[in-house]
């Protein structure tokens, strides 16, 4: 479903962030990408979303080359991928309900479907009572759950979580990871970029280890080893 083929990313003048990275992610997989800060995890996510172009190599999503996609095709691709960011990336002037509904509105879904799905997702993430609050009025854990709710509401084929537990306490981290596991059990591809050892070890899923921009390990049922 997702394929990185000999991808290298060099930032000027000569900072190599990814060095000849190749891997594939298949339908239904839960993949953790681990590495120290600056190992290139976030760059991988940005490359897949077409937010940046690799210096060399190719990236495929559903067998189509991301690099060959036009501006509007990239927007369609981004609609198929739910992304959870460490800094939440919420819309500050929209309520909790509107933040989640926005991604469905973007897709052109009907109002009745939006109302039904958003309420369902807010209930699952425990945010229904906060539906009319603005992001500024939420705690860190609630903001992260809102980011999860927004990422999953469109039932995307792929969910990418970039350090989703970085700002959370153990309890909230567990909540977020449980949600991701549920989504994976429902058939979604999950790509989790993290440096949280405990979470990776508890998951017992595939682990790709990045170090200095290179893949040094790719284990089917891996553990956090750095």
């Amino acid at each position: 479903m997702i394929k990185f083929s000999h991808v290298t990313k060099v930032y000027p003048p000569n900072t190599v962030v990814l060095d000849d990275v190749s891997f594939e992610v298949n339908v239904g997989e839960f993949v953790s990408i681990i590495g120290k800060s600056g190992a290139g995890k976030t760059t991988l996510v940005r490359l897949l979303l077409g937010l940046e172009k690799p210096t060399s190599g190719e990236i495929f999503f559903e067998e189509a080359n991301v690099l060959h996609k036009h501006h509007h095709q990239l927007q369609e691709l981004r609609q198929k991928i739910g992304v959870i960011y460490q800094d939440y990336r919420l819309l500050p002037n929209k309520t909790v309900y509107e933040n989640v509904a926005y991604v469905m509105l973007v897709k052109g879904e009907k109002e009745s479907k939006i109302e039904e799905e958003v309420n369902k997702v807010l209930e699952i993430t425990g945010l229904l009572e906060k539906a009319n609050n603005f992001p500024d009025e939420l705690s860190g854990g609630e903001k992260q759950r809102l980011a999860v709710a927004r990422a999953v509401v469109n039932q995307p084929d792929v969910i990418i979580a970039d350090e989703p537990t970085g700002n959370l306490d153990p309890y909230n981290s567990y909540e977020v990871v449980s949600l991701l596991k549920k989504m994976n059990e429902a058939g979604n591809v999950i790509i989790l970029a993290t440096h949280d050892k405990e979470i990776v070890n508890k998951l017992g899923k595939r682990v790709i280890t990045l170090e200095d921009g290179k893949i040094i390990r790719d284990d089917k049922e891996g553990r956090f080893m750095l």
Partner: protein
Amino acid sequence: MMNNFKRVLKFAWTDFSRNRSNNFAAIFVLALPILLATSLFVFQGISEYIIYEVKGKMDVTAFFQQDVAESDILRVKDELIDLSPEIKSVTYVSKDQAMENFIARHQNDPDFSEALEEVGVNPFLSSLDIVTDDPLQYEKVAFFLEAGPYAQLIDKVDYSQKKDTIEKVFSITANVNRFGLVLGIILFLIAILVVLNTIKLSIDSSKDEITTMKLVGASDWFIRGPFIVQGIICGFAAFLICFVISVSLIFLLSPNIAFLTPGFTIAHYFTSHLLIVLLIQLGFGVGLGALASFILARSYLKV
């Protein structure tokens, strides 16, 4: 498509009502160029009227020799009418008519009547008063009269004395028009810069929001649309405020400044050009608001 348009309108209205302080600043700033444009329009109306009035008072008078027959003078009159399409009128004033005019003008001044009686004869000359549409034509007319085929019939042409005044008025006319144009362009540029800066401040606070919208797959128009509609709403609000202000000011000040421009009422000029005023104010408000939002939102869409 229609659904998306409705959603864009809804987003715009919601965001507009939630960002009151930013929008208030934008409305205030948009009001300035609208008021400037309106003032410039009224100023142009006043200057056009003054120029028209001054031009109307200008003429060239050709005085004929004492013994020239009336038929010869009328022949000159016909020739003058054919000389240029810009000659507005040629009026023949006979000797008797000139004296009657003089007496009527000085009927309350016995010194003039006594002086006239002492002379004993009609000292006035027959004349032609020539009025043209364009001050530049006076020189041509004067040249025709002084150096043309009828020069020997003419005693004097009252142009050289008026020449300086005519040229001065012509120069003022050209300068006022040039000054108005330059001032208009400068004001327009200042207005654009001020509006862009204020709306930039307003949209700057939404920079991260725009980036996030792109990240979740919103199309450029879905993101840009609400900002443009908000710009239009601000522009429309500024237009309404300016219209009320300008109507109030014009009707309040019109009687007080009427003495500066006798025969010209600003209130009347304003009401007779109401449609143009409305278009200027609406165009400046809505146009600038929408354009500034479009340009600025576009600059943040490069993700």
